[in-house]
């Protein structure tokens, strides 16, 4: 199976994300933001964490307009699988592929810690190796992770079973304790926590592997 990881100036989790994919059996290519086309035959694209373009203007806003993102949006619109962690989630929201916005943490502070998450649905290619209601621990590290959505959007996401993960002890003020969401077709996942930083014994926590394992299983069947 083939994965691509997009690299922007200021990305800093691109290699971690590539390693997460590789550990799950993916062949990974790194794609530079100035490229205008994607490698052929991809099964999934990953948008990594970091501080693309220095978070200038708004987090993810400049990256969302980069040449490669046009190809990424086309890929998604054709039904391709896509995931974004942390800055990747912010970028996906700025492209409009996912609804909502990530704003400054309610406490105004950068938060870096091991975070408890509740699995809200097992019905997605990213979570089917997990059980609904299960609790996992995944690191977070962000200043702008406050998922902002009006009550209607939160209700719609819940009603359509599109909340993938929620925070057990909300660290940033996110609406509805939402940590990660799915697109309408359930093929796009955006989340602030970093599963790719919890994939190996040396990380001290391997809970994040379940996301990649889910993908391997569901994409093999796709």
């Amino acid at each position: 199976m083939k994965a691509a990881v997009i690299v922007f100036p200021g990305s800093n989790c691109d290699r971690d994300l590539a390693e997460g994919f590789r550990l799950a059996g993916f062949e990974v290519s790194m794609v530079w933001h100035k490229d205008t086309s994607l490698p052929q035959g991809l099964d999934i694209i990953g948008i990594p964490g970091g501080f693309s373009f220095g978070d200038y203007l708004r987090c993810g806003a400049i990256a969302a307009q980069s040449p490669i993102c046009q190809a990424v949006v086309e890929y998604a619109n054709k039904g391709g699988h896509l995931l974004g962690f942390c800055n990747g989630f912010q970028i996906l929201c700025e492209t409009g592929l996912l609804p909502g916005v990530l704003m400054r943490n309610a406490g105004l502070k950068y938060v870096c810690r091991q975070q408890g998450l509740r699995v809200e649905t097992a019905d997605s290619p990213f979570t089917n190796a997990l059980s609904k209601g299960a609790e996992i621990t995944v690191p977070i590290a962000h200043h702008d992770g406050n998922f902002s959505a009006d009550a209607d959007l939160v209700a719609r996401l819940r009603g359509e079973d599109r909340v993938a993960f929620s925070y057990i002890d909300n660290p940033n003020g996110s609406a509805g304790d939402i940590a990660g969401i799915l697109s309408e077709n359930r093929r796009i996942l955006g989340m602030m926590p970093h599963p790719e930083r919890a994939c190996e014994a040396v990380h001290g926590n391997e809970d994040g592997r379940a996301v990649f394992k889910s993908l391997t299983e569901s994409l093999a069947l796709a």
Partner: protein
Amino acid sequence: MKARVHITLKNGVLDPQGAAIRHALGTLGFDGVENVRQGKVIELDLAEGTTEATVNDMCEKLLANTVIESYSVELA
């Protein structure tokens, strides 16, 4: 020609930075500051003849995130 774009959070969107500024003003002894909203100003140097519609388009596509922000354009 120049354009000045003012970007502010929409009413009802929580502004924790504005709240922090209000708190700090109170600490400095400025009483009666009931609310603070923080925004940004973007100044653009443009080719003569650029229309307001074009600047609005820039705001819609990049300068503002209209989910949470509103903008106003001043041409000079």
